[in-house]
């Protein structure tokens, strides 16, 4: 039977209709206040009940925010902190797969402060279980730039290694050919994309830019910071985008628009092996993730850093709730 999908996207507020979560996952810290965005909003809803809350705490920050956690007006039956003290590989998969989550469970996932490759892995687990989680994302009030220039944005520090995201290895050969195309979802970091391109060595590139930017003052940053891809020494492999531009545009806030764009590009380049590197906003990455889950020939690569940036978003704005709803 073919599954059909409708999308669900709304602002999370006191009118939220979900009262009980069997499982809720978040990363909570005091570097980015918006890591608490979804839970705070849920606090405003009366009688919200979370049976199991999992906090991924890879930087061992939870103890510092425990007091704040205890102030949440949410009934939480069990709290699990997943950290690296008992360091294992595949810690995310291991911790979730050990839970034996029911297919009918109501699951919430706040991706705001969870690094993109990590939430890709989490969603892969849920996909394997047949679960469609409610996904939450809180927009930043502003972004953190260490200096007053666009190139000072830094979501990843130091050395990076480009790897396939676990569970998204795609294919090596397509219709007898191994030519690859890399879909670059542009972000603000100005020196990362070339490293990814050199590692993946695709024959062709597609540039995708989020639009509109969260704030008018940022509208050109991703283009300026990716000038090498768009007009520099990587531009010779850039594919034509929309309306004679060498770029596609995707709604920054809407994962479903990203999903649709992936569908369009998949059709256009269906004779190539397709890779995607989801820099850019989390909602866009979410749409890419969902598409890749459903089309396992899509490979997702990501620049894994030694360290993520300290906190790239400042304060909190809207919290959104998304779901890719399978009807079958």
């Amino acid at each position, binding site marked *: 039977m073919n599954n059909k999908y409708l999308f669900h996207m709304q602002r999370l507020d006191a009118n939220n209709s979900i009262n009980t979560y069997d499982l809720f996952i978040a990363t909570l810290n005091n570097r980015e206040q918006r890591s608490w965005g979804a839970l705070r909003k849920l606090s405003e809803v009366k009688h919200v009940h979370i049976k199991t809350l999992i906090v991924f705490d890879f930087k061992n920050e939870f103890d510092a925010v425990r007091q704040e956690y205890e102030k949440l007006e949410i009934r939480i039956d069990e709290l699990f902190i997943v950290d690296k003290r008992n360091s294992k*590989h*595949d810690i995310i*998969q291991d911790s979730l*797969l050990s839970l034996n989550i029911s297919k009918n469970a109501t699951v919430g996932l706040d991706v705001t402060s969870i690094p993109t490759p990590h939430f890709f*892995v989490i969603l*892969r*687990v849920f996909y*394997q279980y047949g679960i469609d989680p409610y996904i939450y994302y809180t927009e930043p009030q502003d972004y953190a730039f260490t200096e007053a220039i666009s190139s000072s944005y830094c979501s990843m*520090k*130091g*050395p*990076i*290694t*480009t*790897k*396939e995201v*676990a*569970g*998204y*290895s*795609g*294919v*090596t*050969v*397509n*219709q*007898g050919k191994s030519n*690859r195309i890399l879909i670059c979802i542009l972000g603000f970091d*100005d*020196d*990362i994309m*070339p*490293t990814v391109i*050199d*590692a*993946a*060595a*695709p*024959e*062709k590139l597609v540039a995708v830019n989020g639009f509109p930017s969260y704030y008018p003052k940022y509208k050109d940053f991703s283009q300026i910071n990716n000038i*090498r891809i768009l007009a*520099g*020494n990587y*531009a*010779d*492999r850039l594919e034509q985008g929309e309306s004679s531009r060498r770029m596609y545009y995707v709604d920054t806030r809407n994962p479903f628009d990203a999903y649709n764009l992936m569908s369009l590009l998949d059709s256009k380049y269906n004779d190539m092996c397709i890779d995607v590197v989801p820099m850019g906003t989390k909602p866009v990455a979410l749409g890419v993730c969902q598409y890749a889950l459903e089309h*396992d*020939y899509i*490979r997702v*690569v990501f*620049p894994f850093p*030694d360290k993520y940036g300290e906190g790239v978003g400042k304060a909190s704005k809207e919290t959104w709730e998304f779901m890719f709803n399978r009807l079958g």
Partner: protein
Amino acid sequence: MSLEDTYRNPFSDYNANTMNIKQVVEYWENPFNTYLAEISEEDIKWSKSPIVFTGGRGSGKTHVFKYFGIDAMKQRAETNNRNIYDAVIDEKYIGIYIRFDGPQLQNMQKTKVEEEQWIIIFTHYFELVIAESFLTSVYDLLCAKSEPDRAKMNTVVQKYEELFHVEKQDTDIEKRYKNLVNTLGEDINYVAHFKSRAAFGNKDFKPREIYVPGQLSNTIIDIFNAECFPDLDINYLLLIDEYENFLDYQQTVINSYLKFYNKFAYRIGMRPYGFHSYATVSENEFIKEGRDYRECTLVTSLIGKKELGGSFFEFLKKLAEKRLRSISYFANKDLTDIKKILGNKEDYVCEAQEIVKGKKTHFDEYIKEIKKEYKKNNIEYTITDEQMKKLEDDTNPLYEVQNLHLLLKPNTYDYVLKAFNDYKNGIDSKEAQKYKNDYLNKYKLSYVFILCSIYKVKYKKYYGFTDYAFLSSGFVGTFIELCRNAFQRAYYNDSDQPFSKIISSDIQTLAAKDVANQEFKQINRISNIGDNLLVLTRNIGTQFRKRHTDKRIRYPETNQFAVKGIETREAQKYISAAIQWSVFQQKKDLQQESIGKSDVIIYTLNRVYSPIFQISVRTRGGFNESYSYDDIIKMATEDTSNIEVSEPEKTIETEDDYHQLSIEEYLSDYE
């Protein structure tokens, strides 16, 4: 025809990964006949022994490999109206190019699968990739025999179907062949799917067949050759690129192929120090250079010096000519000599004039130093303003700096004046000869750096074919990128009549800076160690910069360093990584650390960074900075830019001292 129709940047498409096969052939300039004379094309085609090519990003490895691949051979045959089958008979080799990408290989580890199982999986995968690539590559050969022989093709297909355990599904031979290739493709994709599943608990590896070492790779050639070239000794090359991407255990597997299996002649491309392992699957067997493989570097550190076949300069010039000729805008105007577009070499006098703009601030700065020097040597400073005026030359500030420099040494005023006047007036005296030698052969560029420092000019200019060739640091890709950037800027600067004159030195300098900054920024992102390498490079570059702004010019154009003392693993880790990623380059042979000192290994920074540190792109020899291994560790972990450069033990003074050294890259056509 409009400009838009005829103009395209001739230096775009510089990455061989993205070039189409026509460009691979069209842009090919043979390095083995010029600056890489240690190996010949014939060696590459016909040697049965494995050959390892080392070179960093931009060294041309991929281009070389693709050129020797069968697709390029087909392209050449087509251009010459020849049948590919006949071309193989003439050339007596078939090259199969394979590139395994890093992200794919990185994920073939852990995820609760034991390494022993990964070895089996990877070997199986390796066999499949070789087989699939081989079948895809030779299909045209099977169809292109001068006398079509369906029976022979049928025999090949049948034998491959038996080898791969694929059922005959059609009577049509082409369809059966395609089915073979598709089946192998699906088998390869099974491994990718396994990787995805294994990370989430499903570790069952149950492919259609599991292939062991040599099972396919040893047999596919025999089957094909027996039918297509039965009486010929065709050399089958397996060109494996980016060997450094393989994990340790993966290299162990492939090393075993190099040592034990010789149906293919292996050609391996990798960065320096790309071997993570020399082991093989046999516990007591290792591969060793000389015995099991031959190594050849694709990068020369001798930019200007002529090798047996020619110099890197000549190579770049010819390569540029090919690219320019391929664009009608340049071909139609007969603008195919890159030296005519970039200029040949720098004009230091003109640069100096632009820096000083008629001012004499350099006199003030030097007089302060001269007075200090005289006081130190208990000499009374009695030079009057009028006397100083005789050392001026409004047409050439570099003469002025030379005169001041000579006074600072210290030399007497009378000596300096005589030397200057004799030189200018063409009088053949000993003083004039020394003056000429100092000016032309030793210090001229150094004076420009001094003026930049005194007048606080933000950027020294880098322009001209010679500078660009040196900035490339032996990497063809860097030269092409410099040109691409300069041409792009020149075109946008004057899109009505681009290239009607030499691209301005300002534009070329901007291009050089831009490329330098891009390359420098990428250091930070080098896997595992980038942040340390960035700090290390910055610290060493800063030390070189200080030498360049030394008014005494004790060590002109210092841009090399030695590391000596008791080696530590941590320091060596930084040095090896820096070489692997082409941040440093190691000189081929041992050289004197400095005059009168013992021979050591000498390193340079990649010259592309020169605009960042405002240092010379050439190498003058004589003095090299010297660090201990502990210094390297310190410089990789702390900012040492405030540390003063050490006082010299001896200043290089005499012409004889200089001529005793082996001065590399000394340009005979420079002056």
